[in-house]
């Protein structure tokens, strides 16, 4: 039988080891938000502890600081991590988004140079996709990279925005236009940029929850050597799509996160004693949604291991988890009633959940992708 939703002996051992370590090490008091300067520093300390115990990037090869964990084990680690109430991962844009792209498109030299420092939270990566005039329409970016043959590299200019934790990170990965004459999706190149390079200015600003979690990044004639081009000049769109696949799908938003949120919701509902039928139904439906997401990802992992690439299916993940996250938090706020007004974990979680249907490509974009690439509907139209 190839359906077996229980852990194998080795998976159970892996789970037990992760659980024991987390129980002994997760801070008893929640850390301050990692989207503030002070909270970010505390989260970086936590990331270094994770790394010392080799839990920061479990699926990576050991030589880069990982454990060579299987995809199943990675899912197990994520379940345990979120169930333990462990801190948010401020390294996520590096470890979960850039790293898969480095494994797919990077050179050995880039991997050897970048991955160990990423796993150790020495380099802290943020994402440089959006610009003031290019959000959902990512191919409309205007920031440029001009060839500097003498220096053996490129000179980057322009502005990136909505860069999560950009004010606290040390490095940025992003798309820049290297061939202004080429068609929109062509002529783009994926660059790796240290934020302390001359010509870079970063300005943080407040998100809906008030934290300084966003930043604008201004680049003026910033030199980047050829060694920091990822995936080839003019190949930026193809390389970036691999990153967005990770962002929309499994690697950024593992089911463990939503299973834990749904369990907290159920615990909240239970603590209220008898619930009105409608609230009880909301809690049940949110819990079932998290379970459906978990089971869907297990099917997905099985398919991935069988060699079926995720492709546009990652847009279905994104639609589902982002709306599920809003549902879970709305249900919690309804159960809390007047207490929902207090600035606390559930109300903050609710505000954050509202970003899910927007970031990583709005859900409207995702629906169009699903319709065109999964269902095969014609492009264009209005």
């Amino acid at each position, binding site marked *: 039988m190839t*359906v077996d939703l229980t852990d194998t002996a080795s998976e159970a051992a892996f789970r037990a080891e992760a659980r024991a370590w987390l129980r002994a090490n997760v801070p008893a008091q929640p850390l301050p938000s990692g989207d503030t300067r002070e909270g970010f520093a505390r989260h970086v300390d936590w990331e270094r502890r994770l790394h010392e115990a080799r839990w920061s990037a479990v699926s990576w090869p050991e030589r880069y600081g990982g454990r060579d964990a299987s995809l199943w084990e990675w899912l197990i680690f994520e379940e345990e991590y979120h169930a333990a109430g462990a801190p948010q991962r401020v390294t996520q844009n590096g470890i979960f988004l850039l790293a898969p792209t480095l494994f797919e498109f990077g050179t050995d030299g880039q991997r050897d140079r970048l991955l160990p420092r990423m796993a150790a939270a020495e380099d802290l990566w943020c994402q440089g996709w959006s610009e003031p005039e290019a959000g959902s329409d990512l191919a409309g970016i205007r920031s440029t990279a001009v060839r500097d043959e003498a220096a053996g590299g490129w000179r980057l200019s322009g502005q990136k925005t909505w860069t999560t934790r950009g004010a606290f990170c040390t490095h940025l990965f992003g798309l820049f236009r290297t061939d202004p004459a080429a068609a929109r999706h062509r002529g783009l190149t994926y660059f790796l940029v240290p934020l302390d390079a001359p010509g870079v200015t970063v300005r943080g600003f407040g998100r809906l929850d008030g934290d300084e979690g966003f930043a604008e990044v201004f680049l003026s004639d910033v030199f980047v050597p050829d060694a920091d081009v990822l995936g080839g000049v003019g190949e930026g769109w193809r390389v970036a799509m691999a990153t967005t696949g990770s962002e929309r799908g499994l690697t950024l938003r593992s089911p463990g996160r939503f299973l834990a949120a749904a369990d907290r919701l159920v615990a909240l509902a239970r603590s209220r004693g008898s619930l009105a039928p409608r609230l009880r139904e909301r809690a049940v439906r949110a819990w079932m949604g998290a379970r459906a997401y978990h089971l869907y990802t297990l*099917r997905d992992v099985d398919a991935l291991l069988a060699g079926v690439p995720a492709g546009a299916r990652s847009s279905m993940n994104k639609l589902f988890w982002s709306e599920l996250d809003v549902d879970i938090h709305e249900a919690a706020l309804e159960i809390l009633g007047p207490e929902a007004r207090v600035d606390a974990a559930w109300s903050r979680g609710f505000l954050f959940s509202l970003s899910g249907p927007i970031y990583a490509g709005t859900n409207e974009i995702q629906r169009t992708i699903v319709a065109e690439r999964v269902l095969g509907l014609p492009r264009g139209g209005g």
Partner: protein
Amino acid sequence: MRFGWTADQVALREAVRDLLASACPPSVVRAAWPGGDESSVEALWSALTGMGIPGAVGELGLDEVDLVSLLEETGYAAVPLPVVETAAVAAPLLAATGDPGGHLPGILAGRTRVAVAGGLVPYGRRATLVLHLDGPAAWLSTLDGAVDETTVDGSLAAVRVPKPSGEPLTEDAELVGLAADRLALGAAAQLVGLGRRMLDLTVGYVRERRQFGVPVGSFQAVKHHLADALVRLEFAAPAVYAAAWALAGRRPERGRDVSTAVLLATEAAREAARTAIQCHGAIGYTVEYDLHLYAKRAWAVAATCDTDAHLARVAEALDLKGAAA
């Protein structure tokens, strides 16, 4: 952890799909409506019997995991016969109770079909026996005293039968509960299949139908409806397969998982029906076009699912108390 199909399971599913594509096209579903040619419906049962489907659990040795995707295919084809009831519910229950009436050989030979009562008896007019699952006991009755009922899904051949009297088939609450869960799982699997069929029909249609000089499927409003319907179905299906696994292993959480599957599949199929009719426009609101065969079946199957009871069962498994309880 593993969550995929074996090569045998895939092969069997494809064989059933191929069989139903030729033996149960829309014309056969139409033939099952009043005034239709019942002989093509009988031929369909013979074809399913030829494949061993009525004896799938006993003779072929299949469990719920093997069976669930076959049942999904019967939903996809809107088979107008009690396949779930006979193969997935009655046959294993009779086997477990020692088959006191000696009905199993007839089932395996394709002579005996068993419908299940639930208010109405769907496919009762095409059945030889009716199974009643009532709390901790189950009865088996004949069709004596059956009265035809007119249904929205005209292919149901539904009847009403008197409440059974006399000796129950079994008073083993666990066996009866298992039979009820198999029936619910079968309904969920059929609903996923029906939803997929309606979505396929709609995708095919909106790619062809042109308005404003372009296929209507190129409009975002249509695309987004269909993407949402697909996502609901795709996220319901694994919950149905997981429930099959829990049932096959008699796992303690099986009640919770079957109810979760039913609730997700019901919602997904209803949304698929609503979306399919809307995206077809006026042609979807006719009986000449095939869509209504599948939409009406989906509503009929969904109506057998007691949503409140399933919600209560998941809530109890989560230890959530209701104000009314």
